[in-house]
């Protein structure tokens, strides 16, 4: 790998004026810079939505608490959910995809760099628009006009009659706009993966991260579009006198639910599949073995992609569908657990017989495995329509989806951050701070979300700004809130680590983890053109072949 020859050591280039740097970043079409912009944007909203969560938890620490009014509380949980899904989850995963996919397939950039930039700025606009609603019409006092209809915005609560003013419109427009950005990025990722792989990289030699982002992008095309359509319908109802969801005119509230969840369920798989990709890249490196069962991992993911489009009404088990519909969605929901479970077993098989190194990325991965196992099993419980008639709309569901989204997605993202930060910045994150972040976050996460299942079993519904004492929920809610603060401290430590290590971290070099995929073949950070010359590959682990010429993978594939 001769790409180290791009910088001439010892030569000090003149310091660039900061305005020039700013201009470069704002006008960039480089996938690496856009990836970093996406990630920073998402981390900002992680903090914002995290603060919203803390305020929610303070209000719920005691029954009949008066920390915030019901109006503010309802806006908080709407913003928290909407922000975490659309302005934290999607951007950070698109950010990593943007950064890594071209590098991992040996390309110089994405297929459409300008579309890439356009999509990012669309998504950024969406986030800005959602939060502009706080000052929108009524001003900041009393949280202005932020949406308060829940992140699913069920009809007819979103009709003009029940949501006057513009709060719902900010929700709709922010997501419409960022939805177009998501579709643009998905198209870009698909075109990049199918059309720009380096010579020798057949589809069955692609890193799993590329495969899984391909599947995820296909799902974005099929899933985000129904939401876009439904949101247009909502706007037509609200502004052109349409009756799509107008129950007075014979319209159907259930239709919104179906359209929303046809988006909503694949969306959560869209969020977790890139994290599966992180697991599939990181666990092998720190187990010192290749991923166990590469072809099945691909097949299982494709399977998940398809089956997850048929399970959506398990979010609607309480709305009164007939017993055949409820049974159908029960079987499909449980079926999607099979390929997901297979992946956990394959990661187990990867670690088995390995020599595990407990570096910080691996700690997050191991926690992910335990946590996703539990989340999957509570998902099976929720997939059983009869059991779900008690569990749905309660804190049991809230616990389940936070288990997948925090215990799965956030832990996966943290693993990715620690693993690829050295590649992106050229410096290692501090290992001690990293371990502190891990253990604190783990303890806080389990305190909050393990306990949270119990109020659900004891009848506590979700989206309530306060609750009655004496139902067995009081102490649990207090402890749950304490766990939230522990997680907050851990995130502060992460942010500090990110900043401090940027300036003082140990220099990383090309390949600090002794890994095997192409991004580790170039410098850290990579030059703008990624590779001095386009690589040629003959196996799934090109760097393993180079480091072990006596035993290359290409012999076995």
């Amino acid at each position, binding site marked *: *790998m*001769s790409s*180290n*020859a791009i910088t001439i050591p010892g030569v000090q280039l003149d310091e660039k004026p900061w305005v020039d740097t700013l201009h470069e970043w704002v006008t960039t079409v480089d996938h690496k810079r856009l990836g970093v912009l996406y990630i920073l944007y998402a981390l900002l909203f992680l903090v914002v939505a995290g603060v919203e969560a803390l305020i929610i938890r303070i209000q719920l620490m005691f029954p009949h608490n008066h920390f915030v009014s019901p109006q503010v509380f309802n806006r908080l949980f709407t913003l928290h959910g909407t922000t975490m899904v659309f302005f934290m989850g999607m951007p950070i995963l698109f950010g990593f995809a943007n950064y890594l996919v071209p590098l991992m397939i040996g390309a110089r950039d994405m*297929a*459409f760099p300008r579309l890439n930039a356009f999509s990012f700025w669309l998504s950024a606009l969406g986030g800005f628009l959602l939060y502009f609603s706080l000052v929108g019409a009524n001003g900041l006092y009393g949280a202005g006009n932020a949406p308060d209809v829940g992140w699913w915005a069920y009809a007819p609560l979103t009709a003009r009659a029940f949501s006057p003013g513009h709060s719902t419109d900010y929700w709709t427009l922010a997501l419409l706009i960022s939805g177009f950005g998501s*579709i643009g990025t*998905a*198209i*870009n990722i*698909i*075109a*990049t993966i*199918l*059309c*720009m*792989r380096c*010579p*020798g990289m057949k589809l069955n030699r692609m890193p799993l991260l590329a495969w899984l982002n391909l599947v995820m*992008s*296909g799902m974005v*095309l*099929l*899933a*985000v*579009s*129904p939401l*876009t*359509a*439904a949101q*247009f*319908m909502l706007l*037509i*109802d609200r502004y*052109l*006198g*349409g*009756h*799509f969801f107008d129950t007075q*005119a*014979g*319209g*159907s509230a259930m*239709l919104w639910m179906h*359209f929303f969840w*046809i988006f909503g369920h694949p969306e959560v798989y869209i969020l977790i599949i890139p994290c599966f990709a992180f697991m599939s890249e990181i666990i092998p490196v720190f187990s010192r073995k290749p991923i166990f069962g590469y072809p099945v991992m691909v097949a299982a993911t494709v399977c998940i992609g398809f089956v997850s489009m048929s399970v959506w009404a398990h979010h609607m088990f309480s709305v009164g569908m007939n017993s055949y519909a409820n049974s159908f969605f029960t079987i499909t929901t449980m079926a999607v657990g099979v390929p997901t479970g297979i992946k956990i077993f394959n990661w187990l098989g990867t670690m088995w017989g390995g020599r595990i190194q407990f570096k910080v990325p691996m700690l997050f991965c191991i926690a992910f495995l335990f946590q996703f196992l539990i989340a999957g099993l509570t998902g099976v419980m929720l997939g059983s329509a009869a059991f779900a008639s008690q569990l749905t709309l309660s804190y049991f569901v809230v616990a389940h989806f936070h288990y997948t989204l925090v215990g799965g997605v956030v832990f996966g993202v943290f693993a990715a951050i620690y693993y690829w930060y050295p590649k992106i910045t050229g410096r290692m994150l501090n290992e001690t701070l990293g371990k502190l972040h891990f253990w604190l976050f783990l303890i806080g996460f389990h305190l909050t979300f393990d306990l949270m299942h119990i109020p659900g079993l004891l009848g506590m519904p979700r989206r309530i700004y306060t609750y009655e004492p004496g139902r067995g929920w009081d102490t649990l809610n207090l402890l749950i809130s304490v766990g939230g603060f522990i997680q907050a401290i851990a995130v502060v430590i992460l942010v500090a680590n990110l900043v401090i290590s940027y300036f003082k971290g140990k220099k990383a070099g090309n390949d600090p983890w002794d890994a095997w995929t192409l991004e580790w073949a170039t410098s850290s950070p990579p030059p703008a053109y990624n590779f001095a010359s386009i*690589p*040629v*590959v*003959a196996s799934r682990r*090109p760097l393993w*072949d*180079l480091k072990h*010429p006596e035993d290359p993978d*290409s012999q076995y594939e």
Partner: protein
Amino acid sequence: MSAMANLMPQAPATWRLPDRGKVAMAGLIIAESAIFTIFVVAYLFYVGKSLTGPTPREVLETPIFYTICLLSSSLTIHFAAKSLARDRVGAFLGLWLVTIVLGGTFMYGTAQEWHRLIYERGLTISTNLFGTTYYSLVGLHAFHVTAGLVMLCLVAIFAVAGRVRVQQSRRVEVLSMYWHFVDAVWVVVFTVVYVLGR
């Protein structure tokens, strides 16, 4: 470093990957199909469920002529693209302009129909469920036709200025994929609205 370079695998003899413009357009078509599917589902779901107002049977007139125009434009654009691939710029420009005229005629037909429905028959988007779903679905399609026509006109302008030759043939093919998609959607919309929905 250079020692490692000697261990680099041999590049395969041929390495041909799909054209990214076509893959991207296919992706866009998939996404758009999903959007249209939802509007079609809403239309079909609400067939016969309006509480008031005019019904499809009472007010709709089947637009056979304009449909033929639109579907023919798929033929003309197909041959236009083929002509350009053989660098026959004159034939390309002629067929391209015919495509635009046919598409424009379709839009005129839609405008005329909507004018009649609104002013003579009193059917608007807010009249009843039929009105809402009809104008949304047909309107969404018309919007996509309009967007397509804008793109086609842009290409026509560049072609008249002599800038479109065989080198641009790939891009023209990508655009014609979009146009074929718009026509295919019309086949579905036509069937749902004028055949099944009545």
